[in-house]
């Protein structure tokens, strides 16, 4: 009885094992990169909004402080989306006839909510509190990026756990004095790590062991 396979089939069989291993490694690499990609984290992706609100104009151009609109950021877990009344503080007289702002005026007239699209959406199993971050010297810009340059709003960072841990492991690399919390384009007056270490002590920021404990964020 003659052989069914030619003897080169041995090499093909062996090579296919190597190829399979390479393919698995490649698939692993793609999944690893993919799970961190902007496509998955939705970072740097502009969300469509009912009104094309420009932070670049309001913060960069007019110089409004973040807290003018996001009033609860220092007191609450949530940096509130401003109620329509805050828009109308100025837009009761400015851009009165603009069709772009009609949804804002309609919301004010009818006492209905504007349905903004959420840009930063943490998973519900994460406990996050804005007020403590602000109180401990984490600037708005540190997480949200140069909002004063965003014509339409996007999420600057991945908001993935490894990204949170960058700072929870080494807060001294990121914290700034409280008076510069809302400053955009902040430059530390000296060496960041040196200033950071002083601030960590001054603001009683807890040690990385506590900050990276599971139940600090998952409770």
């Amino acid at each position, binding site marked *: 009885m003659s052989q069914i396979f030619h003897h080169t089939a041995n090499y093909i069989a062996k090579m296919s094992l190597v190829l399979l291993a390479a393919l698995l490694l490649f698939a692993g690499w793609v999944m690893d990169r993919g799970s961190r990609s902007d496509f998955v984290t939705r970072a740097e992706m502009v969300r469509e909004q009912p009104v094309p609100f420009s932070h670049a104009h309001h913060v960069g151009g007019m110089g*409004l402080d973040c807290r003018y609109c996001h009033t609860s950021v220092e007191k*609450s*877990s949530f940096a509130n989306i401003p109620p329509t009344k805050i828009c109308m503080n100025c837009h009761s007289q400015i851009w009165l006839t603009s069709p772009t702002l009609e949804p804002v005026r309609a919301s004010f007239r009818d006492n209905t*909510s504007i*349905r903004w699209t959420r840009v930063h959406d943490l998973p519900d199993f994460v406990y996050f509190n804005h007020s403590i971050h602000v109180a401990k010297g984490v600037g708005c810009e540190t997480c949200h990026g140069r909002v004063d340059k965003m014509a339409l709003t996007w999420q600057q960072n991945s908001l993935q756990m490894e990204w949170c841990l960058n700072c929870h492991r080494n807060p001294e690399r990121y914290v700034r004095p409280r008076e510069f919390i809302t400053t955009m384009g902040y430059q530390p007056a000296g060496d960041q790590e040196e200033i950071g270490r002083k601030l960590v002590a001054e603001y009683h920021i807890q040690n990385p062991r506590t900050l990276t404990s599971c139940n600090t964020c998952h409770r």
Partner: protein
Amino acid sequence: MRTRFQLGVLVLSVAALAACRQDMHDQPKFIPLRPSTFFSDGRSARPIIEGTVARGHLDEDTAYYTGKDANGKLVAEFPFAVTKEILLRGQNRFNIYCTPCHDYTGSGNGMVVQRGFRHPPSYHIDRLRNAPAGHFFDVITNGLGAMQDYSMQLTPEDRWAVAAYIRALQYSQEASINDVPAAERAQLGQGAAK
């Protein structure tokens, strides 16, 4: 037969895990401003009924919480001792909420006014220099003219702090060299010379 069973288990467990992930990410609970289909206005949080008094907020001290005395007359003086901490807090809040229109000196040439908002009166006119302290508290609480009220943004404590800072701004514009202690006059102008 056995491999098919294993494959089935694998597929089911992957599907279960995927579904689990989504449930945990978007749990059926209401976080702030998450919409609801239950109420007709689409909001999950209910507006506070008018006249609601929060526990510990009976606010019986009319002078402190309205800026007016029992007869409805604006209080002339601050109903507390103004300290440096209060002034600094007032400056901080003033710079956030008031400067867009009133600008950093209180003359009323803020950025929003430059873009077409009605010009508010300068703080440095006689009418406002002589205004009772309660006037500023009352305007922040209830608004005046084109200005909306800022009672949501500023707590009563903060409103008084801002009012105190406005007084400080008024004094700052009337100050003369005689107001500076003689020992410190030499320092004047040195910052600019540097």
